C-alpha cells in the first residue's frame, strides 16, 4: 500500500529544502510523548547538574532522631532515609552518579561498537568473521551475569562498574552497527563512490557513517535504561558505588530494610530509576519513528 502513496508523493516536487536532521527534529517536536520525556530528562539532568545551588539540605548530613520520616514532613518534603538524611537532596544528588554510570558506558560502547561494526560490515570477509565471532562469545552470557562477573573480577568501584558495563554493551552495539553497515554497503551509492576512486576510509567516513549513525544511535539510547538498571543492580550488590555516596541503586539497596516501615520513601529511588529509564526508552522509540522517513 505504501508503495503507491510513495510514488504519488515522489511526483510532487518539494518547494522547501530541509536537511535530513532538520526533518527529524521537526517530526520529533510534533511527537508529544517524546517531547514530555525529553523535558523530564532535561529537568532531572539540570537539577543533578545544579544540585549544590538549589538550596537543598546536605545529602550526607544524617540525624539519628529523624529517621524514615514519611513524605511531606516539614523540612523533609520527600521524607528521610534510614540514617535520617533528606531524601529529596539525596535523590537529586544521586542523579549525578546514577546518570553518569548509566550514560557513560553507553557513550563509550557507542563509540567503540560503531567503529568495530562499521569496519566489520564494510570490510567484510575474514575481518568480519573475526570481529563478529568474538562478539558472539560475549553474547553467550546474559548481560547481567556478564556485568557482575566483570565487575567482580575488577573489584568494586565506580570506574570499574563503568568499564564492565561498557564491555557488556560493546558487543550489542557492534552487532547492530555491523548489520546496518552491511545493508548500506550494498547500496549503489557506495559502489558509485568506489567507482569514483575513493578509498575505504573516505567511503566509511563520508558515505557509511552518516547513514548508519542514526539507527545505532537509536539503539544505544534504548540501552541507557538497561545500563541504569544494571548499574543500580551492581550498586545494589555492592559492586558499584560505596556508601555513603548517594546513588539510586545503592539507595534502593540500603532502604530495602525499611520497606515495611515506610514503603513510599523506600520506593523513591526505584521510581527515579524507572522514570529515567522509561523516558529514555520512549525517547528512543520516538527517535526511531521520527527518523523513519520513507522517501
Amino acid at each position, binding site marked *: *500500500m505504501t508503495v*503507491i*502513496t510513495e*510514488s*504519488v*508523493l*515522489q*511526483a*510532487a*516536487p*518539494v*518547494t522547501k529544502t530541509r536537511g535530513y536532521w532538520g526533518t527529524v527534529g521537526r*517530526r520529533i517536536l510534533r511527537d508529544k510523548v517524546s517531547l514530555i520525556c525529553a523535558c523530564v530528562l532535561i529537568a532531572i539532568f539540570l537539577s543533578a547538574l545544579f544540585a549544590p545551588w538549589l538550596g537543598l539540605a546536605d545529602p550526607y548530613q544524617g540525624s539519628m532522631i529523624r529517621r524514615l520520616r514519611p513524605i511531606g514532613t516539614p523540612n523533609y518534603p520527600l521524607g528521610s532515609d534510614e540514617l535520617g538524611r533528606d531524601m529529596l537532596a539525596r535523590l537529586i544528588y544521586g542523579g549525578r552518579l546514577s546518570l553518569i554510570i548509566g550514560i557513560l558506558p553507553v557513550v563509550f560502547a557507542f563509540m567503540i561498537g560503531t567503529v568495530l561494526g562499521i569496519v566489520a560490515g564494510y570490510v567484510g570477509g575474514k575481518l568480519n568473521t573475526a570481529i563478529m565471532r568474538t562478539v558472539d562469545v560475549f553474547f553467550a552470557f546474559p548481560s547481567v551475569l556478564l556485568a557482575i562477573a566483570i565487575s567482580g573480577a575488577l573489584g568494586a568501584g565506580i570506574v570499574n562498574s563503568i568499564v564492565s558495563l561498557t564491555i557488556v554493551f560493546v558487543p550489542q552495539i557492534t552487532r547492530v552497527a555491523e548489520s546496518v553497515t552491511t545493508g548500506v554497503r550494498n547500496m549503489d551509492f557506495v559502489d558509485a563512490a568506489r567507482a569514483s576512486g575513493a578509498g575505504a576510509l573516505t567511503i566509511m567516513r563520508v558515505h557509511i557513517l552518516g547513514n548508519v549513525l542514526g539507527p545505532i544511535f537509536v539503539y544505544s539510547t534504548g540501552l541507557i535504561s538497561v545500563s541504569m538498571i544494571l548499574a543500580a543492580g551492581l550498586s545494589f550488590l555492592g559492586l558499584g558505588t560505596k556508601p555513603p555516596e548517594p546513588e539510586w541503586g545503592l539507595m534502593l539497596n540500603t532502604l530495602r530494610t525499611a520497606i515495611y516501615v515506610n514503603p513510599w520513601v523506600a520506593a523513591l529511588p526505584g521510581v527515579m530509576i524507572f522514570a529515567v529509564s522509561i523516558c529514555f526508552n520512549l525517547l528512543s522509540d520516538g527517535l526511531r519513528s521520527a527518523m523513519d522517513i520513507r522517501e
Partner: protein
Amino acid sequence: MTKLVEVENLNVRFTGERTVHAINGVSFSLGEGEVLGLLGESGSGKSVTLRALMRLLPKKRTVINGSIRVAGRDVLALDDDELSMFRGATVSMIFQEPALALDPVYTIGQQISEAVIRHEGKSQREATARALEMLEVVRIPSAKRRLDAYPHEMSGGMRQRAMIALALACKPKILLADEPTTALDATVQIQILLLLRELQREFGMSVIFVTHDIGVAIEICDRVAVMYAGQIVETGTLRQIVRSPLHPYPRGLLASTTHGAKRGQRLETIPGTPPSLDKAPTGCSFAPRCALAEARCTEALPPAIDVGDGRMARCVLAERIQPASV
C-alpha cells in the same frame, strides 16, 4: 451494454504529514466483457484508482469521495464481511510483484483451494480439483506437481501465472490488473499478456488493466483511459487513442516514444515534470507543460467534453470537435 463498474466523480485524498490529492474527479465505466486500460505515468493515480475499487487503500489516511458501483453494489458502503466476500468472488486483483502477493508459507495449491473453500464453501477435495484445473488453465507445465510448490520455488513468470490462477479461481466478474507484466522479462511479458487476453475471452470477464506502457496497452486493451495528475484526461477506444489522440498529453506521450525513432534524431519530449498534488487542481493540470495552453486553461478546470462515440477529452481543444461527427 450493461455497466459492470460505474465510477462517478471519485476523489481520493491521502492525509498525514503531507496531503496528496491523488485522485481528482475521476469518472469512468466498464462494460461486460470489456478490457479497459488505465494508462499513465507514476503518480498519475492509476494504481490508486484500482485500489479504491477494491477498497484496498489504508483506511486511516485516506479520504474517499464520490461513488463506486460494482455489479450494482455500492462498494464504499460495504461492511467488512461483505467486503471480504466481494473481494475474490466479484472482483479480484493481480499485482506487479507476485512474490509479494503470494503467501510464502503456503503452497500454491493450498492458497488456491483455501480461496475456493472460503468463497464457495466447497469441500477440500473439490477445491483441490479446482486448484489443479486453474493451474492447467494458466498453462503451468506439470500442474499436478506444481500444486505442492511454494512460491519461492517458481520462476517469475510461473509465479505470475500462479497468481492469475489464484485470482481467477472463484470466477470473478472483474479482474483488476496492476502492472502485472512490468517486472517480467520481455519474452515472459508477452506470454502473460497473451494468456490474459485468452482467459479474458474464455471466462468472459471484464478487466481493468493498469499500465504505464503503451505497447502493453495495445496488446490487451479495448478501451483506454489516459490518466494525468489524478484525472482522466482522455477516454476512447484503443485505436482512437493510439491513432488520433485529442488531448495534448497523450499526444506528447505517443510522440516521445523511442519506437521507430531515427538514431541521432532528437526525441520529441514533454517538457517539465508532473505537478505536485498537494492542492486540488483549479485549472488544467497539464497546462504548465502544454505548448497549446491558453489563458482559460489555468483559470478553470477544463470540462470533460464528450465528443461522441463514448469518447471523452478533458481539454478545451476538444470543443472544436463536433460531437457525433467522429
